């Protein structure tokens, strides 16, 4: 616990509220016992001078235990509310509800971003979902219309154009989580593909994918925009995923090849989507600050989802569904409204370095799949939407 990392391995997360209430009852009994002692001390202290200090100290112990009991009761209540909220909204999801990454649209609509961010943190008492003090952010629920629009537009996956801006040989595989996060490219050149020809004749690739670089909804030229974010979270096709598969194809990666995926923010959602697509033989997945809550890992490969508790982006993917992934959370220490700081790859690189020091077995692989030291080839791509391309069928 000294590292400040909370590591949630597959299998479950919250303790039952009943157990918390049982502890509340224990505290209640304790407070009553201490109060009784304090009362006795107050009664005898006038007759036995020198005991007034003990009476005061006992009363203070009682007050602190009552405070603890109230805090526990509040936590249990909120946990129960959250569970009820999750159950309700996950059912809705089945008939078309999506939890959308609307931050960009709100920000671009004139300074309401902070209010939105505050409501995401549970600061807004008028929000329609319970305040979340236990596990960070609950998502905004955006329903039906957005999903319908996306489906009508083909989920934003109109044509994309790729350019290799860098291609060189001699790269060696990353060996640690920090190194993998450091290899995520800038959003101007959002896709980096490393390919390694192994001695047995097979290809191993590692794909590094950057996050959103345009906060418009399909009107800009980047496939890594808000429309793709919405498409990914809604579970329909997305131009950013299309661009990534195209880049992989250009780098020589074929369906069925062994591939490890690493992505930041929207790139993490693309990484999780492609890792689970069944097209490639996924060897590993690492996402940082990504809205992957509704993109469960079902495959049998090492998967690590790294999230900062004060980064709003991981929370907007929705309530987390059951996943085989290991989730690592940490408070990055940035100020409340420093959204960019908590979400930046620089701050996630620090967390990745801390993970490399962890002795937890699920994190021992450094975020990679099979280890080899074969030198390989690296290609970095820029991507743009093709203008005027009609949405596919």
């Amino acid at each position: 616990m000294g590292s400040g990392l909370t590591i949630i391995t597959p299998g479950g997360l919250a303790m039952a509220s009943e157990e918390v209430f049982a502890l509340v009852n224990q505290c209640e009994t304790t407070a009553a016992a201490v109060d009784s002692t304090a009362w006795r001390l107050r009664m005898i202290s006038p007759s036995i001078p020198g005991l007034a200090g003990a009476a005061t100290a006992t009363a203070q112990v009682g007050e602190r235990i009552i405070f603890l009991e109230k805090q526990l009761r509040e936590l249990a209540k909120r946990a129960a509310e959250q569970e009820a909220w999750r159950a309700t909204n996950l059912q809705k999801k089945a008939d078309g509800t999506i939890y959308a990454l609307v931050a960009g649209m709100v920000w671009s609509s004139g300074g309401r971003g902070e209010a939105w961010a505050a409501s995401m943190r549970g600061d807004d008492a008028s929000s329609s979902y319970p305040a979340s003090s236990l596990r960070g952010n609950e998502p905004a629920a955006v329903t039906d219309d957005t999903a319908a629009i996306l489906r009508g537009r083909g989920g934003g996956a109109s044509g994309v154009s790729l350019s290799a801006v860098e291609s060189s040989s001699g790269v060696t595989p990353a060996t640690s989580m920090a190194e993998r996060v450091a290899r995520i490219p800038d959003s101007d050149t959002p896709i980096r593909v490393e390919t390694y020809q192994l001695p047995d004749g097979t290809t191993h690739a590692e794909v590094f994918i950057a996050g959103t670089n345009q906060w418009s909804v399909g009107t800009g030229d980047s496939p890594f925009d808000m429309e793709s974010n919405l498409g990914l979270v809604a579970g329909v096709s997305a131009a950013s995923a299309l661009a990534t598969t195209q880049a992989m194809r250009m780098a020589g990666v074929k369906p069925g090849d062994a591939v490890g995926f690493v992505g930041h923010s929207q790139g993490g959602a693309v990484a999780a989507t492609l890792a689970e697509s069944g097209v490639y033989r996924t060897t590993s997945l690492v996402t940082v600050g990504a809205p992957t809550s509704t993109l469960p890992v079902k495959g049998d490969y090492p998967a690590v989802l790294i999230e900062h508790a004060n980064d709003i982006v991981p929370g907007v993917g929705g309530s987390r569904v059951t996943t085989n992934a290991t989730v690592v959370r940490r408070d990055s220490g940035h100020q409340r409204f420093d959204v960019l700081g908590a979400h930046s790859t620089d701050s996630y690189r620090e967390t990745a370095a801390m993970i490399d020091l962890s002795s937890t077995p699920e994190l021992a692989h450094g975020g990679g799949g099979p280890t080899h030291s074969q030198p390989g080839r690296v290609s970095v791509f820029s991507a743009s939407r093709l203008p005027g391309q009609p949405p596919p069928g």
Partner: protein
Amino acid sequence: MDANDYSRVAAILRQEGQAMRSIAATLRSHSIGDSWRGQSRRAAEGSLADTIDECHRAIEIIDGAEREARLLWRRALQTPNILGG
């Protein structure tokens, strides 16, 4: 509530248990001497002894609550797989 929460609760209860032990020690070491007033020396000693007993009962209950928090902490670490790294 995760493992860290239970750990914090157990730590607080441990601290309060120690505070009560310290109070009990103060009571035990208190000398009635000639300072008692308004009642017989025997009655004052009896009241103090009863209070010390009461204090020990409170300590036992606090210790029980702390054990419960530690149990939940261990369970949070093991069964639901929530680990503090």
